């Protein structure tokens, strides 16, 4: 199987970080954890790493448009400060000095945060999201804020008010969404890793489309403090990286609760104690990197028959089945089973997500921040005009639908009905996980669509979320790992879904698969079988 990696260096040919000074192309071929190691060992500095990334951005950003905001000078300055701390022994974590891209719906003190919406064009938060703050305290250095679907409503990054992002593998195709800018930036080497948010697949699906690893943890694992809310009962922040190891290390960092020691935050803000949201679980079992073992012997893996039925592209089905076969050959017990209610997940999801979105987006009224329409003579007219001019079509569509399903007379029939179905879907997963350690399937029914192909038919676009949204409804952890490419060179992703709190099982399975696949690719290169 041919896989095109247009920017990131050939993974199989890369070297283990050494002590010698590295060439710039070499730096860009490292994973986040490898770069962190090289920086700690003194082979690379944080500033050199940032310069390498900014150089790549210089080359490819004009074409790809992964970012909404890039602050080069600030990034270099921060990298210099972090380097000093590393040399002084004050920062020694795996991500210290590693450049990171942050989705533009995560608040960053002193940095513009737009949610890819016109309504937040000039919004500069006074505080930083907890997940981002954890990364900064671990020494990761922010490059900029990545493009996304407006308020994360979409699956292609085409609803951004700041223009589309292109897929680094095939520029005429979308990167997926809503965290499309983050996924494309990782794939293109415009960052070493990125943060995204996943409400219905918005980390996993773009990761799949861009050929990188993306993960959504169990609901409540990462604090949502400072994440601009979309569907609060579904939203989780998740990592995007080049390897499973990177994702485990990033997740360990962003899920931590101890990041907020008394004192001053990175931007000089008062940081007294940790700030969480009401659903943060404060888990103790977040040593995710401990699960990176190449071993699936005896692991029970279930493949839902409904995930391989009508609507699934043939090439995607083949690649995912090959991945399952590889795991089975290495000792996993893989079998097909019937996961019930799959077809009801999308209608339940869109009802709940639209309802929560309509409520969460009430705050954008042109009073305290963001865009305000001119020419309104009284308050209510100003609200309506501001929102009508400030929001794009997809946002308006979901606010209208959400307002409808929550309105008196329809609340029971639509909203409560969807919440009842959600309970049934959760139960179906509980039954599945009584028999399996992991559920395996595709991430998306097709590879990345062409630009402009999806927006004309919203319902069709929503149907593309069929394999990812259930994990959000049931609060489950799930990971997307590259497992091949189609005949056009567009990446295909493998999804592994775990039971609540069982991140380690899916990480171990994903890591094992990644190592087996890489070994297979290296063998193919050696024996000349690589077509």
């Amino acid at each position, binding site marked *: 199987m041919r896989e095109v990696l247009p920017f990131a260096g050939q993974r199989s040919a890369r070297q283990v970080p050494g002590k010698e000074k590295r060439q710039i192309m070499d730096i860009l071929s490292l994973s986040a954890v490898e770069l962190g190691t090289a920086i700690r060992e003194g082979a690379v500095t944080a500033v050199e790493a940032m310069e390498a990334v900014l150089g790549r951005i210089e080359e490819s950003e004009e074409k790809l448009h992964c970012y909404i905001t890039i602050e080069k000078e600030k990034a270099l300055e921060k990298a210099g400060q972090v380097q000093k701390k590393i040399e002084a022994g004050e920062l020694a974590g795996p991500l210290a000095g590693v450049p990171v891209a942050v989705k533009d719906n995560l608040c960053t003190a002193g940095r513009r945060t737009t949610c890819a919406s016109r309504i937040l064009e000039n919004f*500069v938060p006074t505080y930083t999201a907890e997940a981002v703050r954890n990364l900064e305290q671990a020494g990761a250095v922010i490059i900029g804020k990545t493009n996304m679907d407006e308020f994360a409503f979409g699956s292609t990054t085409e609803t951004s008010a700041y223009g589309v992002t292109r897929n680094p593998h095939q520029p005429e195709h979308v990167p997926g969404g809503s965290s499309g800018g983050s996924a494309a930036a990782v794939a293109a080497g415009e960052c070493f890793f990125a943060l995204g948010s996943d409400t219905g697949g918005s980390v996993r699906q773009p990761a799949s489309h861009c050929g990188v690893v993306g993960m959504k943890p169990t609901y409540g694992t990462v604090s949502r403090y400072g994440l601009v809310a979309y569907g609060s009962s579904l939203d989780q922040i998740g990592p995007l990286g080049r390897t499973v190891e990177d994702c485990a290390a990033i997740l360990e960092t962003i899920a931590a609760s101890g990041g907020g020691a008394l004192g001053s935050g990175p931007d000089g803000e008062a940081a007294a104690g940790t700030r969480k949201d009401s659903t943060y679980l404060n888990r103790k079992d977040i040593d995710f990197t401990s699960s990176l073992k190449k071993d699936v012997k005896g692991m029970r893996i279930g493949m839902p028959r409904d995930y391989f039925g009508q609507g699934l592209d043939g090439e995607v089905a083949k690649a995912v089945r090959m991945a399952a076969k590889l795991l089975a050959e290495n000792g996993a017990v893989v079998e097909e089973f019937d996961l019930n209610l799959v077809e009801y997940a999308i209608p339940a999801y*869109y*009802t709940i997500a639209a309802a929560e979105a309509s409520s969460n987006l009430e705050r954008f009224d042109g009073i305290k921040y*963001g865009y305000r329409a001119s020419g309104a003579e009284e308050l209510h007219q100003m*609200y309506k005009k501001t*929102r009508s001019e400030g929001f794009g079509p997809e946002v*308006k569509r979901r606010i209208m639908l959400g*307002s409808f399903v929550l309105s008196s007379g329809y609340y029971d029939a639509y909203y409560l009905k969807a919440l009842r179905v959600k309970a049934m879907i959760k139960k179906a997963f509980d039954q599945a996980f009584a028999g399996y350690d992991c559920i395996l399937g595709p991430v998306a029914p097709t590879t990345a669509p062409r630009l402009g192909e999806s927006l004309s038919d919203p319902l069709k676009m929503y149907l593309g979320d069929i394999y990812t949204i259930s994990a959000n409804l049931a609060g489950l952890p799930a990971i997307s790992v590259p497992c091949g490419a189609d005949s056009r060179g567009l990446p295909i992703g493998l999804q592994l879904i775990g039971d609540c709190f069982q991140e380690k099982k899916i990480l171990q399975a994903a890591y094992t698969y990644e190592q087996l696949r890489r070994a297979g690719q290296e063998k193919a290169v050696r024996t000349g079988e690589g077509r």
Partner: protein
Amino acid sequence: MANIISDETMEYVGILAKLELSGEEREQARKDMGRMLDYIDKLNELDTAGVEPMSHVFPAQNVFREDVVTNGDESEGILSNAPAEKDNMFAVPNVMSR
């Protein structure tokens, strides 16, 4: 289309959503909403009698903390985001009719 959204309903939803849609936008929204509701009606195939609505997947408990101020005076940073301000306050259009 099974779900026909009446003018009254569109008007009502527009008020709830605080959105003012132009004629063309409004017709498109009516069509889109009808189609989505047709699709959502699929949920009616399931018998949910006796199933409790589930808003959160885990039994969530409220977490309490002491109500102490931890941030300093950020009024300057906050007001710098305001579309209009006057005397350290948010300025808004006329609320009451003259």
